């Protein structure tokens, strides 16, 4: 199914927008999401393990993506 992913800061520039859409199979994991993003134009320069937030919480590569969870791809944090 088609999932929308929120983008911020450098990654919004990388993909040219504040969201990007990817096609993911049912039961897809964070790792699947990262692979799909990496296949998009601009995605090749993502780091090996980018920070993915699922429902506004940091997610591990093996975590499944709940159907209605907000997905976001986060550049290295630079607050504080």
């Amino acid at each position, binding site marked *: 199914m088609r999932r929308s992913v*929120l983008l*911020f*800061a*450098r990654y919004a*520039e990388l993909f040219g927008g504040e969201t990007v859409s990817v096609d993911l199979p049912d039961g897809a994991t964070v790792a699947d999401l990262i692979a799909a993003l990496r296949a998009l134009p601009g995605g090749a320069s993502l780091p090996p393990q980018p920070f993915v*937030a699922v429902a*506004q*919480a*940091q997610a591990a590569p093996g975590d499944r993506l709940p159907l209605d969870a907000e997905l*976001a791809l*986060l*550049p*290295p*944090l*630079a*607050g*504080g």
Partner: protein
Amino acid sequence: MHLQHDPLDLASLVASVSAPDRGAVATFVGLVRDHHAGRGVLGLEYSAYGAMAEGRCTAIVAEAEEKWPARIALAHRLGGLTVGEAAVIVVAASAHREAAFDACRWVIEAVKAQVPIWKRERYLDGTEAWVDPTAPTGTMPTGVMP
């Protein structure tokens, strides 16, 4: 609300957690510096994943208040800042100065590690770049463009 576009005010944050039974107040203020990785900085722009950043700040404050007998105030600036302006303020008020210092220090480290905020610096030479604290020191910031 922990994120704000308006300037941060140390005195009002201190007042917000001070109380007659909390005699020790430790604070941390992070100011915009005039240099970074050897380059002159003019100013910067903070942006955030707003809802998650607010949520993480609230969770960090709650966790600190559980770990230590302290009350915590936390505020982070968003938008454009110039050199010398306060970017982040942490206040920890406790009956004990050890708890105040420990909680204050823990909170600023947690903010840096957990809160989705990004910083784009503007340099004296006219370039700009997203700051990447995970990049090896001494390397150029990523995404430099004129």
